[in-house]
Each structure stands twice: as structure tokens, then as C-alpha cells.
């Protein structure tokens, strides 16, 4: 017995994107998802709707149109000021019940991966976590095909949600491409009022503590100089920083260095860290465990320095150098500085 059995899935239409905003700023992944949603909506012959939740956030709507939204649903409510699971889940469920979307996409962020499961459980529909690829079935069903890594990135699985709607997925940040912002785009905004019961607000936020970090997010960096266990010590990360400075890039790291307490978790690349696709990924003293490769192999150009010529990193590297990163890095930094100075 299926409660929503063979629910009239034809009644569910449109590709919806949950727009994540924190501190009055829309998350990059939400823009990426709007871009992807456009492509999917094209194949499904439907529209892209952005769902924006928050408190006093109506001014954020404008941008959403330029990133690809055809329509916007705005739930503006004081209870949605700071992210909290149940009020957000309540509002999102109301939106789904009312508008009946065919697809809802969320960023696979700390918020998206907390909110979406709760919504899916309540709505009684499927949810596919941390997708890296989305497509539309060409068998006439127009089902959403959601592909994601599993087994620590060792295998990929393609998943569908054939009999329940909406089809929901969280999507890994940094994987989908934003569209080039459309100029003068606009989209009709539907202000949807939701009464959130006080009882939903049962987790009290006592304090918000921002992590101290002035570094650029590694997902936004064009050049990443990344260090692994082979760097030997946290002090040697300075060598990476020097080269990153010369290349106007950012330093990132493998999991080993985070586990060893050398660097902060927010610069970790890989399965349990962040997925990056910079123009250049330079791996220094990183052996290249599969979990690491999963987070960086989409980079445009991969260079690697490692002492061990059998290191798996060389299997994905466009240019591999067998050698001691500690010795090569300072020389390369000098080379780069000189080259840039010469050009000027």
C-alpha cells in the first residue's frame, strides 16, 4: 500500500531550488543550482522556481532572476531569521504542499543536508544526497536521474525516485556551473505567507560564533596550492603559502594534515572536505588517496610533486614531478615571481 500511491505525479510540475541565504547573502551553490535547474527544466519543458526563505530578504529576489529563476516564491517570516531545522522544514513543506513541484534541489551544505532529509521524511518522498550529476531520463518518464559517489568515492550510483514527488536531491557545492548572469532579468515573485507555530521553534539559538577565517574559500579559488602529509610539518605550509601568494592562489590541504591538527578543516579537499575545480591544482606531498582525488580531479590542470613515483596522485596529474616538494617549492616560487615581474 502506498499512501501517496501513484500519486498523480503529473500534477507535480517545475524544477524548484531552495535558495540558501545566510547573513543576507545567497550561497554560491544556490546560484549554481539555478544554472543546473535551467538546463533540467529545458529538458522537462517546465520552469525554474527559486524558493527563498528568510526574514526581510525580499531584496535578494532580483539576483535570482539573473541567475536563471523564472519564478520566485518568497517566504518572509521572523521565525526564519536564523537557520533552524524545524521552522525551515515547516515552511518548505508548506511550499511543497501548495505548489507541488516535480523537483526540489538543495545545496549539499550544512543547512541543505539538515533541512532536506527532514522535509523528505515529512512529505514522504525520496531524497538523494550529495549529488554530483543530475540529468533527465530520456525514456519518456522525464524522471530526474541523480548521480552521486558512494563508498568513499569509490563508486558512483545513479538513483531515481519514480513513484513519489517531488524528486529531491542535495547537490554538492562547486560541481554545477552558474550561468553567466542575465542582464535585466526579472521574475515574478509570489509572496507566500506561512504561519509557523511557536511549537516548531523548539531549539533555541543562544549564540552565533563565526569561525575566524580571512582566507578565501578554497571552492572559489582559481589556483590551489595543496599540501599533504609529505610536507612534513605545519611550519612547512609556509612554503605553500609563499607560492600561493605568488600565484594569487590559496592554500588547501589533504585530510591527513587536518587530522594531524596542522591546518583547519575548512581548507580540506576531498570526500569529507570540499570539492574544488580550480584552474590549477598543485598537489605537494599528497599521495592521492581515492577520497582526496574525488574532491579535486575535476580541476582543469593538475600538477603534483611527490617523492614516491608510485603515488596515485600521478595517475590524475597532467604533470607529475618525482621529487622533494620542500626543495622544489622555494625554487618554483622564485621562478614564478621572476616570470611575473618580467611580464610587467
Amino acid at each position, binding site marked *: 500500500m502506498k499512501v501517496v500511491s501513484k500519486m498523480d505525479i503529473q500534477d507535480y510540475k517545475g524544477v524548484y531550488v531552495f535558495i540558501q541565504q545566510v547573513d543576507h547573502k545567497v550561497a554560491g551553490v544556490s546560484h549554481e543550482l539555478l544554472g543546473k535547474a535551467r538546463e533540467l527544466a529545458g529538458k522537462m519543458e517546465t520552469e525554474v522556481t527559486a524558493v527563498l526563505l528568510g526574514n526581510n530578504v525580499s531584496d535578494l529576489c532580483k539576483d535570482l532572476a539573473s541567475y536563471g529563476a523564472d519564478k520566485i516564491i518568497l517566504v518572509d517570516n521572523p521565525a526564519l531569521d536564523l537557520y533552524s531545522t524545524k521552522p525551515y522544514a515547516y515552511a518548505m513543506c508548506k511550499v511543497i504542499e501548495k505548489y507541488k513541484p516535480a523537483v526540489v534541489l538543495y545545496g549539499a551544505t*550544512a543547512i541543505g543536508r539538515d533541512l532536506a532529509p527532514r522535509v*523528505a*521524511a515529512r512529505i514522504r518522498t525520496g531524497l538523494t*544526497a550529495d549529488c554530483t550529476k543530475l540529468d533527465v531520463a530520456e525514456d519518456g518518464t522525464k524522471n530526474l536521474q541523480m548521480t552521486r559517489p558512494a563508498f568513499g568515492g569509490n563508486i558512483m550510483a545513479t*538513483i531515481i525516485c519514480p513513484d513519489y514527488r517531488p524528486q529531491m536531491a542535495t547537490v554538492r557545492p562547486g560541481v554545477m556551473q552558474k550561468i553567466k548572469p542575465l542582464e535585466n532579468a526579472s521574475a515574478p515573485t509570489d509572496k507566500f505567507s506561512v504561519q509557523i507555530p511557536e511549537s516548531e521553534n523548539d531549539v*533555541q539559538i543562544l549564540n552565533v560564533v563565526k569561525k575566524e577565517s580571512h582566507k578565501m574559500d578554497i571552492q572559489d579559488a582559481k589556483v590551489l596550492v595543496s599540501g599533504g602529509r609529505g610536507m612534513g610539518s605545519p611550519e612547512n605550509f609556509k612554503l605553500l603559502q609563499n607560492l600561493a601568494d605568488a600565484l594569487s592562489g590559496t592554500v588547501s590541504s589533504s585530510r591527513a594534515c587536518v587530522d594531524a591538527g596542522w591546518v583547519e578543516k575548512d581548507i580540506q579537499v576531498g*570526500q569529507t572536505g570540499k570539492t574544488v575545480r580550480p584552474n590549477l591544482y598543485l598537489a605537494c606531498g599528497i599521495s592521492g588517496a581515492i577520497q582526496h582525488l574525488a574532491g579535486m580531479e575535476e580541476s582543469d590542470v593538475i600538477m603534483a610533486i611527490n617523492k614516491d613515483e608510485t603515488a596515485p596522485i600521478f595517475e590524475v596529474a597532467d604533470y607529475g*614531478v618525482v*621529487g622533494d616538494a620542500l626543495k622544489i617549492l622555494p625554487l618554483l616560487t622564485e621562478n614564478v615571481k621572476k616570470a611575473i615581474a618580467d611580464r610587467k
Partner: protein
Amino acid sequence: MNIVVCIKQVPNTNEVKLDPKTGTLIREGVPSIINPDDKAGLEAALRLKDTNGAHVTVLSMGPPQAETALREALAMGADDAILVTDRAFGGADTWATAHTIAAALKTIPYDLIITGRQAIDGDTAQVGPQIAENLHIPNISYAEEIKVEGDYITVKRQFEDRYHIVKAKMPCLITALSELNEPRYMTPGGIFDAYREKKIKIVTRKDLDVKDGDIGLKGSPTRVIKTFTKSPKAAGTLVSNLDPQEAADYMLEKLQEKFII
């Protein structure tokens, strides 16, 4: 205080290798372990037991072999263990898994439920929040620090760039990160007691108030239609036997060729 920790037995994915010829997973000889986030959750529960006093129950849904993970949890110091196991539960996705586990949880007392953030084999991070939804209790994901005072729990909840310090009245569910703590070892005596003196309670389909359409493969909204291994990227060039200066020169040349500088 009754704490229930949900644990999953997983293959140690760090030791999973791909067959270089066929590109398939080599699962043979891969040891089974308690999922790391879950183990951190168990440690958090055991610390609350040490400081505040608590009765710690571990619960796992899985095949009969998952018993080993429960014995390990007992050997670390958990008081009771429950194995939710039945062929009827097989093939469940996160929706059906959470629904089943929640049904099992409804049969026992709890003030605090702790799950790991995500399992290393599935990496979904969905079952925890979905259990909470099924039980109609609050969930606090990504707990980095936990404090219990009276009926209230205070948690440092992690986001990418910040923390929320949040407080909730129990019963509630929290999902634990492996960064939360360093789980203790079992003790040798604990292992012998776990096997010789403790019993694992088995919960099957008939013990739970669930509908057939809501469990196992049948109750799962999602379907896996294809699995595959990633095709490797075309091989690049590998140079060795360069001295450091030659290596640095070579790399500069390539950076310029690729218009990085």
C-alpha cells in the same frame, strides 16, 4: 537519563581498493568497523554516562553480522544492545531506514538519541534527521560539543563558517561528527563481558508497528538504477630524475604553457 546511540556497521572504505584491471571494487578482506561518526556519538554518550550518569543503549539496523559492531559498543561501555534485523527491512533507502529505526525506538525509553552525521559507505547524512522527524522530536545536526543540564541539552552545532550554540529540551536527537572526540578503546575485560555476559536484543518485523509498504525496498521512494566506477582520466606526463632547480624550471614552463601565469 536514557541515551540511545544508533550505530551502523560499515566496510572500512579507506581499505577498499579498485581492481586496476576491471575497475570493480575489491571488497574481499575489507574489515567491518563501527561507522566513525557513530563511534564518536557513542563516545559522547559514554562521556555523558561518566559525568552525568546515564543508561546507554546501542541500536543497529542491519544484517545479523552487525552483531559484532554492537558487541564492540558493549565492550566500550554501552549497557544494552538492540539489533533490528529482518529480511523484510532489506534494501531500505534512507526514508525506509529512518522509518524502521524510529519504530524500533518507539518501543524503548529515550531522552537523547545520538546518531553519527553520516556513514562512510553511503555518505547520505539523512537518516539522523529523518529519525527525528518520524519521532516528532527536534534534531540538532553536526554536534561538536555537547552539554546536558537537567532536561536540556546545549550543543555547539557546526556550519561551514560558523557555529550555533543551541539549546533544546530533551527528548531530542543529535548527529555527531567524528571531530567531536577521540573514541575510547574497548577494554579486554569489556570484550569478554560483551560476549559472555551480555545479551543482544533482537527486534524483527513482527515486533514493530509498521506497514509493509513503508519498510525495506518496497517502502523506499528511491531506486538505484545503475552503479559504476569512474573512468580514469587520460594519463599525464611524469618526470623524474630532475634536480630541484630543473624541476622548478619544468613546472614554470608548464604553468606558462597553460596560461596560468
